């Protein structure tokens, strides 16, 4: 088991390195000139002179050979140094340390909501025998997934904050302020889980062992929840990793809509201001979170499915 975990950890390290490298390549090697773009965004002065551009290049170390830049940035990364923001001059790691808790809080609640909502919808779609009902329940996730989350967020603000004044709208702290953003962020996840788990539950219910249990006299909801859910859970667990990637991306939009000072809003600002060190730092930290969850998901498989437990032991024993 320990070598299995060790291999997974090595893969996780590869993913973070890959995220760093891809970002580096995209930001330094693509045809666009980020420094010129960045300076043209500055409010003071007119168009940047070539001299200004070369000064900023030297400041950022962009005038060195790309390979040297890459390895020096990689070395800094290993020491936890993500560079300095061009806009504010502050250390990127400090900025992220400030905004990360906001995003983690939002993401964690949204993840719980997505799982709870998705499982509920999937169970509801598979209970009962009415074909019409099943058809309707099955179309619910694909409707939810089609809604742009920036629009859903604004509609929720309109209805619950501006019209009924139940929840605070913008820049709110505390649990009440989290309700609307978390729902907005969770909705696509609810749909994703409901779709995958619903399908998997449906095919599990066709298995012969379910007929056996039914013949022994168990009720439909007991069969579904006690005997079906665990067997059908594997595909849903797999997409949970994917779901976390979507939550990270969704946080960019949701935090912008609700003006929450989190990592997602920071990267939005950083892209607007062409603040490359901040963009790169947040992408690396986000991929770290992404890979951590996927690691947890991988380690969850053997718990859910004993067959995988034995193979992973066999692999480890070899």
């Amino acid at each position, binding site marked *: 088991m320990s070598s299995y975990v060790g291999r997974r950890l090595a893969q996780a390290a590869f993913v973070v390195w890959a995220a760093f490298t891809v970002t580096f390549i995209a930001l330094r090697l693509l*045809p666009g000139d980020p420094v010129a773009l960045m300076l043209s965004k500055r409010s003071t002065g007119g168009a940047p002179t070539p001299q200004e551009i070369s000064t900023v290049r030297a400041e950022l170390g962009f005038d060195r050979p790309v390979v040297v830049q890459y390895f020096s940035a990689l070395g800094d990364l290993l020491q936890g140094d993500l560079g300095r923001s061009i806009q504010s001059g502050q250390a990127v790691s400090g900025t992220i340390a400030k905004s990360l808790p906001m995003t983690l809080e939002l993401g964690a609640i949204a993840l719980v909501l997505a799982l709870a909502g998705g499982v509920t919808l999937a169970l509801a779609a598979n209970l009962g025998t009415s074909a019409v009902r099943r058809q309707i329940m099955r179309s619910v996730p694909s409707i939810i997934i089609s809604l742009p989350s920036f629009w859903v967020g604004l509609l929720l603000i309109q209805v619950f904050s501006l019209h009924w004044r139940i929840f605070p709208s913008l820049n709110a702290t505390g649990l009440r302020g989290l309700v609307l953003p978390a729902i907005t962020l969770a909705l696509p996840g609810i749909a994703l889980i409901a779709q995958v788990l619903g399908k998997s539950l449906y095919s599990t219910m066709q298995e012969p062992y379910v007929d056996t249990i039914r013949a022994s006299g168990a009720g439909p909801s007991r069969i579904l929840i006690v005997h079906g859910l665990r067997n059908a859970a594997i595909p849903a667990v797999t997409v949970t990793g994917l779901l976390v990637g979507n939550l990270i991306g969704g946080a960019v939009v949701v935090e912008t809509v609700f003006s929450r000072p989190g990592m997602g809003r920071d990267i939005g600002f950083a892209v607007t201001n062409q603040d490359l060190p901040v963009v790169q730092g947040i992408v690396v930290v986000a991929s770290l979170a992404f890979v951590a969850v996927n690691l947890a998901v991988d380690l969850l498989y053997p718990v859910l499915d004993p067959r995988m437990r034995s193979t992973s032991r066999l692999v480890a024993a070899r």
Partner: protein
Amino acid sequence: MTATVFDVGRFASPASNAVRRFGSQPGLLIACAVLLLVIGWAVLPELFTDQSPVEGVAAARFASPDWQHLFGTDELGRDLYSRVVYGASLSLRAAAIAIVLAFVTGTAVGLVAGFFGGAVDAVTMRVVEMLLSIPPMLMSLVLISALGFGTLNVGIAVAMSSVAVVTRLMRAEVLRVRTAVHVEGAIVCGARWPRILLRYILPAAVGPVLALAALDFGLVVLAVSSLSFLGFGEPPPAPEWGALVAAGRNYMATAWWLTALPGLTVAVLVLSTTRLARALESGKSIR
């Protein structure tokens, strides 16, 4: 036990079969109409509105939706419906760029990697894994930081965030098809590899990839409009759909239609394309 016992469609001609399918599913008909309408907006906006998308009438600021202004007017008295109509070409263009770029690149690379195997395949798959290590939305943001704003760049950014998935699927399909009898036959007959690749493997392997493209189109429209909402599309006054919603944010308390209706347009379009993609997929599996 919901299996269809007797499939009438099997004995009918494909055309009458299609008509039957549409007739029995009004949802499909509506989805098709929506898609055609939006394509019409994009190609010939003058046909659908006679009001200017950029010039406003100062007297008609913040008019709520009525027959003259279907979607109401904005803070400059511009007709929101005509802005949405003219915005269709921008939003659809970015989505089309994204989907074509992602699927042509992914198909080509996956085809080559799957067919040649060995080092080419190993390198390709490592690159695919690297691209998949970044959540799609962040991947798009990185590319936009590097390339700058605008419809074309948003399209490229969204394409790059989905090209890895396409490559992986195409490669898997090629691996499946490569050992098929008709491909082995072609090799035995002495066909050259470009012919084998393009004539025998590509058509047999591309089906699931095209199905994915159809399903992905809705998600691509969502991604494009999200990036446009964040302000990374064409600069104002370009009426991109996401940007329209973002502009309406400032007037939410007084003019609900400025955020609600452009967003609704996106939602309805995405819903329709997804519905059509599903129908195409299930139609194929019945055959």
